[in-house]
């Protein structure tokens, strides 16, 4: 994508030095969006594991799979749009970092009133005692950060292979 932008810039600068044209032609991503984003490339050996969520491209949302964030802020007249998006990203990164190497699925964030429920599938690589420590820690820290009750809804699987839907 970067190289295409550079080519564009070169072409544009060759044709004309006007910045108006440059800005109007700068949008390169929409064309790629339908083809590439949210989809995974097939490997040569066909050994790349995909979960069910990854195996279904974005246009199957609400048909074969559902959303990863559940909230009402993106509806008409919804409140706190940017905050919600940012907080969701924060929660995802926090979970992936705190449960390092243990999260086997997408992190699902469900908001009801001021209550945030965070669901994920976790590998049974650490002892239950440690898991309980992390549970208490993440719930409390996120609650303190976001100023609302946070509940973790975890499910555990024996290994990452249990969530693999197919290999491509």
């Amino acid at each position, binding site marked *: 994508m970067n190289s295409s932008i550079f080519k564009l810039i070169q072409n544009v600068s060759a044709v004309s030095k006007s910045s108006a044209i440059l800005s109007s032609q700068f949008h390169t991503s929409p064309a790629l969006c339908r083809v590439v984003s949210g989809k995974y490339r097939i490997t040569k050996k066909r050994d790349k594991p995909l979960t069910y969520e990854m195996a279904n491209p974005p246009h199957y949302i609400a048909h074969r799979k559902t959303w990863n964030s559940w909230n009402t802020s993106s509806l008409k007249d919804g409140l706190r749009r940017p905050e919600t998006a940012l907080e969701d990203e924060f929660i995802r990164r926090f979970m992936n970092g705190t449960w390092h190497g243990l999260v086997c699925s997408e992190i699902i964030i469900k908001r009801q009133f001021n209550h945030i429920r965070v669901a994920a599938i976790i590998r049974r690589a650490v002892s239950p005692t440690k*898991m*309980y*420590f992390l549970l208490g820690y993440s719930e409390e820290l996120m609650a303190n950060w976001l*100023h609302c009750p946070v509940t*973790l809804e*975890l499910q*555990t699987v024996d290994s990452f292979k249990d969530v693999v839907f197919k290999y491509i």
Partner: protein
Amino acid sequence: MYSNIVIQRQWARLAGLFRTLSSLEGQKLPVGRKSIDGISPPVRISRSSTDILQALAATVGVDPTAPHFKYHDDPFLIPQSNYRKRAYALSAEAGRKAASWIRDEQSQLFTTREWDPPMKMKTPYHNADPPIDAFNPRPIYNDESKVTEEDLLYTIQNALLEDAIRVYQLLSASEGVNDDLKLALLQLLCFYNEKEPIAAEWLEERWFAAATRERQATTWRLGGLADKIFSAMDPKTPEAYCTVIQGMAKYYQAERAHALAQEAMEKGIPLSTSVYNALLSCVGFLKEGTTLRIEALKALLSQMNEQGISPNSDTLTSCLKSISAWGGGKALQTFALQIVAEFKQLNIQPGLSAYYYLLCLFCKERGPRIDVLTTILNDLEGRDSLEPTDAMDTHFFITAMGVCSEHLQNIDLADRVHALLMKDDNYRLVGDAYKESIYYRHLVSVACRHAPFEKTAQLLDTLIPNIYVPEPSVMEEIIKTLELAGAGDRLAEVWSQLVVFGLAKRVKLVERLLDALCNCYTYQDEEIKEKIRSAAADMLKFGQMVQEQNEPESRTPIQKLSASALTNIIELCADVKDKADESWEVVGEALARLRSEQASGLPSRPEVISSVAKKAATYGKPGLAATAVTYLAECGFEEATTACVETLGVMLNRPTDEVQTLLREPRSSLESSLHPSALVIAEAFHLAKTGAPIDSSASSESDSETSDDD
């Protein structure tokens, strides 16, 4: 025209406003009388903001078969044993503590805007609107922090005892503290005896807190900060006196408390009812001997009367607390009953803690059996609700159940106590984890001993494992009950429960279970027999597994199953009607362990082994039969000779006398004519008869061969 209409509209509005005002006022006042048209709206009931939630919650009961909701709902994370329940709950709380430590230490991250550019002043930012105090960082006080009286007020109101002391010291060094705050701090110090309490936030820590029964010993800190603050106070207010006396009495500094009370009275300072209550509860420390103590108590009560102070229910509790601490005996018991009767005349009902002390007084372990519990229950069941008023209230149910199980041994009373505990939200009176488990220990043991079996089984099914995990002693009781009822099915399940609860390493329990299994094995269905056999086989395997795991460490000696227990396993597993059954392997394994002296003691029922030997011979397992009789002969059992003869008879398919003549032949001729296993049996026969093998050289070799090639 226009103006008129406008005025009319305004009038309508005004009238409407008045109507709403009057109706609002009407709502505030209780509307009792009937209105003209005969419709009388009910009186408005004022409700708190959580009333609807509580009403909704009351419609959902607790599911005893599900794990407690503090545990995560996932098979991997659901605890099964007592140890795990405790460890999991406390780990989660440790995580929560770690998070709030980070919040307090790095408070700027939680209270300022993250996206302010560096080097600029940070803008205060709170995610919640309106701000929620519970999520805000708590202040940390150290020796450099600048404090004001507000900080002191905050720490006192939140019972942060150590912080309060630090802030007080900082403040008194700089500007001094006003008298109201000094008094508040003195109250805090006296209430907790200068020991930091566990914050109410940490539920699990409080629930699992080490169950130290508070000793009745002087723990009051002499010359501590409380004493200093009090002596520095000038003038000493009645509140200060009351506070210090109560603190001293609470922590059993009885003599000083009474001396201070005397001093206060001489100065003409009025004392409150709660001060007298505190003094009453430690009056026994001043005098020795029952009669003197009773007199002192009476004197204190009459002193109260002279001062014109009316007693309350705490007064009754404190009197009974003192009396129950003085031991037992007829005199004290009648005195206690007198006091209760007198308070009843004053229309003061004894609370739960008063009843607790009464139970302590009347139901001594080795005393005569006195049934005060029935009367107490009659009274308590008649009450609308049991409100906790005293810290000792939580001791009532555990003591009542203990009385039911050990003193009165009455299942009906136990049922009534349990029903009372389960009524409404009385369950909060159960206390903490330790008390809860003792309560259920008493309940289960009384049910095992005295209840009909169906009821016991139902109780066990509801309680175990989510509400209560039985301790070893209770488990033994349960096994005994199941054995008496002949419930082989449940007994077989007990083994898996033992493994799950982490009790399977307790050899005594396993042996008890094996005995029970053997005793009720014969009259079970075929299906259940199968289960019992697999349980027995599993016990043997589990023992081996534990041994293998433990060998490198070998710090703690591993307990091994006794020879009798192994015999029981052999008996159970040998009951099969098929040569190819896997149980024979287990029998062989158990016999090998018996012979290699891995088991302690000698089998109490050697006849089992001889019958198994015969059976093995019948089913074409000569190797097993040979090992069995050799073991019998080596141990020198009387049964060995007959067992040898019979087993050999079965093996060679000959009558007994023929076998006996055969056995008299010399070894050389036997060697050529007999199967190696049969030869081993012949050797065992000679060993049993003479005390020495026929030919001392060959016996050990040959049996090691034969055990393989059956």
